């Protein structure tokens, strides 16, 4: 789902660029790969390059090859050096590695149902409150900064000290669906799952809803754990031209077709302000850790 959504964002972005052909500077995209989890990485790289090149050619745009990253630190360095001027990454990762001054507003997909982060527990595990997580097996997505910070923050709030020692295990899965399956088949007692993935699992198997329960629901204003933003080095005029072009795609048949295929309801402007809840959560986490005497993680700002 995430892959499709971000492909949509990119496609619309490029189409938006096409609408401003001849006026926008060459666009260099930096793509943080953990954004897309349900598709093999190589497939993501090949397909994204192919589609973007095809769309760019059809739109007569000047385009630099898309760059893929596993490390947000490297992505930030490239953006600082001007190698890339537009990023697609997890919102919490951007909040951790970028200052607001380095970024400018961009655009992305809008879903009517916000992709909240849920703490889901297996009903048979006997977890009724956060304190019951003690001695339980917890699962979350790999390379998902929001899940890491949110779980840590919850447990710091509950127990007042780093929680790793209170849990039996913390496992990390590459796919959201794997989290649901681990819970369902009693390989985990609790998991942090994004709402869309969870509801998809419920749609695939109604028995999931009978066995699992949502214990906590964390919402954020951006409605998506991922975000697309320009570098602050891109001029406001160019950003507006490109963004306005992208917004017009909601009205074109081709744009509506793409939105329908990738299950997005509309393309909307994404702002740097949407990083605020993540930054707040991150700040709360840091405060709690500081209170508990735990060191801050490397790269965090």
């Amino acid at each position, binding site marked *: 789902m995430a892959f499709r959504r971000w492909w949509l964002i990119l496609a619309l972005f490029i189409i938006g660029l096409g609408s401003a052909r001849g006026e926008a500077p060459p666009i260099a995209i930096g793509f943080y790969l953990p954004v897309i989890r349900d598709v093999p990485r190589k497939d993501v790289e090949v397909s994204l390059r192919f589609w973007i090149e095809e769309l760019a050619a059809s739109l007569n745009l000047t385009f630099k090859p898309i760059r893929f990253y596993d490390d947000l630190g490297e992505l930030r360095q490239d953006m600082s050096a001007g190698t890339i001027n537009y990023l697609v990454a997890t919102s919490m990762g951007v909040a951790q590695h970028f200052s607001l001054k380095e970024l400018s507003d961009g655009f992305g997909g809008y879903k009517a149902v916000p992709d909240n982060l849920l703490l889901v527990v297996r009903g048979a595990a006997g977890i009724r409150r956060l304190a019951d997580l003690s001695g339980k097996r917890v699962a979350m997505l790999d390379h998902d900064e929001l899940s890491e910070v949110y779980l840590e923050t919850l447990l710091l709030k509950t127990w007042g000290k780093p929680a790793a020692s209170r849990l039996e295990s913390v496992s990390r899965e590459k*796919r959201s*669906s*794997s989290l649901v*399956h*681990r819970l*369902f*088949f009693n*390989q985990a007692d609790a998991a942090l799952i994004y709402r869309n993935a969870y509801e998809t699992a419920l*749609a*695939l*198997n*109604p*028995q999931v809803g009978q066995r699992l329960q949502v214990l906590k629901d964390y919402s954020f204003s951006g409605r998506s754990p991922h975000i697309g933003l320009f570098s602050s080095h891109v001029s406001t005029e160019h950003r507006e031209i490109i963004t306005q072009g992208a917004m017009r795609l909601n009205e074109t048949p081709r744009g509506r077709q793409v939105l329908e295929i990738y299950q997005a309801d509309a393309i909307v402007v994404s702002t740097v302000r949407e990083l605020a809840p993540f930054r707040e959560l991150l700040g709360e986490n840091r405060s709690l850790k500081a209170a508990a005497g735990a060191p801050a993680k490397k790269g965090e700002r």
Partner: protein
Amino acid sequence: MEMMSGNADAGHSGWSILRWLPTNRMFLRVFGVFGSLLLAMTALYALLIIPLQRDSLLKVMYSQAATVSRSIIQACSDAMLTDDFGFVVEHNLQVLQNNKSVRSVVIVPRRGTAMRIAPEGWVMQENERAALPATAFEKESYGIINDAAGVSHYRYTTPIRFSGVIWGVIRIDFDTSEYEYNIDEMYRQLSYISLLVVLAILFAGYFFTLWLTRPISTISQAASRVARGDLDAHVHVKRNDEIGLLSRSFNQMVDALQQSRDQLENYNQELELKVAERTRELDELNRTLDQRVRDEIAMRKEQENLLIHQSRLAAMGEMIGAIAHQWRQPLNALSLVMQNMRMQHRMGSLTEKSMDRMQEKGEQLVQRMSSTIDEFRNFFKPGKHPEAFRLAQAMRSSAEIMEGVFKNHGIALTMECDETIELFGIPGEFSQVVLNLLSNAKDSVLDSGQAEPRILVRVIRIWDRVQISVEDNGGGIAPELLNKVFEPYFTTKDEGKGSGIGLYMSKMIVENNMNGRLEASNVRGGGARFTINLPAVRKSDSPRLQ
């Protein structure tokens, strides 16, 4: 390529499709046979290829199903052994996502709840185990099935084995739309092929059949013209096959016919000339026909009279011979009487009484000789009118005439005759017939040098017919001559002995005058038999004799 010459069909010699299609039956037949054969071959091909193609598609599906099954089992083996069903579901969802032809995967562990994974979702199902075939844990099974909704699937079920231990069963349902599409495609292609065949029949078949039948039809039309008498009809088929040969042969035949007709016309002209000439001759003949007929009749009459005359002369010869034989004894006796008279006179013993006795004796002898002449005269007195007469009497008359001859030559004559039998005819003619036959028999036995010559005359009555046979033992008649003995002037006797008209006249008398038959044959033992077959006279027919 080929054309027909002549003026009769000049208006049809142009090439026209419409002219060929409806009227040329041979074209239609050959075209029909050609087309039927091709259609039959296409149908046969379809009948053979459809099952093979279906089997082939099913084998492809089986191969795909087995591969997918092995792939799933291999990928999930660790997860299955460690009861990591989450991975199993995850993997199979991935399989379903990557393989759109898979409709569902059902994994039934030997212990535990079955999982049913489909593109629309997955679920744990207790009742899946019961839905499996009884042998699902033992061997694989496969085939196309229809579910409750009437949707067809290709279902493949196989046991999941790890190191020989059966862990469970995997059942995969495949979408058959591709199979059905391929089947439809096959039918569609066969339809196209059939359509192409039909077009090929219409196109190639038309020209092929035209190529095959047109020269034949051309020859046929030319033959029809020839049959109507138009010998100018020729065909020009420039081909080196049998049809070309037939064309050349046809032209040769027509040329030969033309020559024959020319000759025939010449013959006719000659014949007409001859007929005209003959007609003239015939007209001339007709004009003189009456005279010719009269001349011919007169000539025939003259010949007949000559024959009769000759016959009579022959009979007279016979009669004279017979008289000579008859007179020989009384003449001897008369000589003796005369000698006795002279002796008695010399001896003076001639008395009045002895003179009277010898005179009486001499008169008796002379009377006898005279009666002999009367007999012969009576015998040959020609009768004018047919009448009933006694056969035995007529036979005896003839025999008595020949009696002297027979005695002189020692010929034994035997006659067996019913005294009551009567015939109708001219007695003299019949006696002449009998005399001819007896004379013939006499000559035959004498010529043969038979030591005991004999003649047998036998009369037999068979109902209302009388059969008179005269047999001798004179050696018979050569078989090749049996049909010739009744021809006039035919004789085997030495020159001067036979005239060759006796048997001819006898046959004429018997068959023309007495309504009978006279036939010659040979008898066993060496002899000839002449048989007269005559109608007998019934008592009621001859009141005068009674």
